[in-house]
């Protein structure tokens, strides 16, 4: 019983420490399909969508996230600012999910243009592109803290 209490205390300490971490946005834009009524999304919700922990938009459409290549600068910026962790840590989390039978990672686009094409063609699509990318065919979401 004392061991469980000790572990519970350690757990609370670790969670408090980890929960205090924050991140700033910048260097990329979150894009969704033009028919999507959303105007902005909290960072946490975006992270959950890319980790497939949230699988439906508020209006009922299935979320269809698309990632970028692991070595790309935009993926690094997105991962650091939205997930609060580096790309490798997120890939490690996906490794665990895949082999636990708890899901597979989003497809990886090769470029901003591929992301735009995916999101424009899927009502539930969500992706991220470089800050300077042409986003005429999609809608840019505001990232809420």
């Amino acid at each position, binding site marked *: 019983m004392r*061991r469980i209490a000790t572990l519970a205390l350690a757990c609370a300490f670790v969670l408090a*420490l980890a929960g205090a971490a924050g991140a700033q946005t910048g260097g990329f834009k979150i894009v969704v399909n033009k028919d999507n009524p959303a105007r902005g999304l909290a960072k946490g919700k975006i992270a959950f969508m890319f980790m497939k922990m949230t699988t439906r938009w508020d209006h009922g459409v299935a979320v269809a996230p698309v990632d970028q290549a692991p070595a790309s600068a935009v993926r690094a910026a997105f991962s650091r600012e939205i997930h609060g962790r580096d790309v490798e840590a997120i890939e490690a989390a996906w490794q665990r999910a895949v082999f*636990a039978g708890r899901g597979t990672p989003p497809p990886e686009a090769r470029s901003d243009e591929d992301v735009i094409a995916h999101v424009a063609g899927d009502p539930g699509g969500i992706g991220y592109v470089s800050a300077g990318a042409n986003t005429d065919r999609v809608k840019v979401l505001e990232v809420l803290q």
Partner: protein
Amino acid sequence: MRCTRRSATVALAAALFGLAAASAAAAADFGEKVQVHGYGNWAYGKTDGNAYMNGTDEGNYDKLEFSLAVAAAPSPNVSVQAQIFVENDEEGAGASVDYAFAEYAFSDLARFRIGAVKQPFGIFTEIFDVGTVYPFVSLAQGIYGPAGFVSEHYVGAGLTGRTVVGSGWNLQYDLYGGEMESALSTPWAETGEDEGEADIMDMVGGRFVLTTPGMAANCGVSAYTGSEDARSEAGEVESHRQTAVGAHVEWFQGPATVRAEYAYKDDEVTTANAAYAEAAWRFTPHWQVAARYDWSKTDLEDGADVDGELLKHQDIGFAVDYFFSRNMVLKFAYHRVDGNRFTAADDEDEGQDDTTNLYTAGVSFSF
């Protein structure tokens, strides 16, 4: 014969090593409907006397594992997943099904699973042999060894789901029921059968895991209870209730990972306590060092007079890993073990030493 099998093992290990290096470890993706992933491990182990994990006194090259996982989503709410596991060890080669189940998602909060499903207990039961996600060649033996705590999978049905709690926290739950087999060694038994499996029937269990925003940390509790059928020395089948509970915590911060687990089990014949704490630090993109303290203690409820060393286990381990990439890692580890709960005499005609030193090296890959 032994020489031939060793040569075959080394050749196969070399082939797998080459496959891992050459493939750059990319998963096959057939559209988004079907994905194929896999992993493999090979390791050499040498001890100074007793056999322990993959190590033997004369050196053991035979720990070789490969697994292939397939996930398919035939419709938006239905997914089917299966994993085949092939291994070669000192006992020979064999194949098994790690899991094979279908899942129907009512919502994020409720997903129904049926079939042979990975048992959700603690941190690693669902990713038992995926060597690229943990720093040592093998998991802590107190909980994940042949201690009768956990199983590769249960056969039955379960419900799983997750929900957002507060601002970005995530609560995941699992509830399940069915049957499972758990690897169990009983070195104190007089029957001579010190390696076996415990069948846990009519089992119900659950796990709850709370994860922080950004998945920087998580903690969870697990439990199950069921009826274990055991055959007595007189040949009679006796039924015992086995109940196990556990708690775990993990913390990821930059290059550092810290995790700890505790588990307790009572099967009306024995009680067992086990715990470990492990810390790893990735000090360059390629190099990682890790340390682990692993402990367990078993008590016999009938107070039988057995060698106390057979009931206790303490393993202090150190590891150095070299990551070629997230998908391929070389591992070197040293373990100092006190107690004989999970060790065995290398030569059946000789007794065991109370302490064991294990040196092990291997490679793990996944794609």
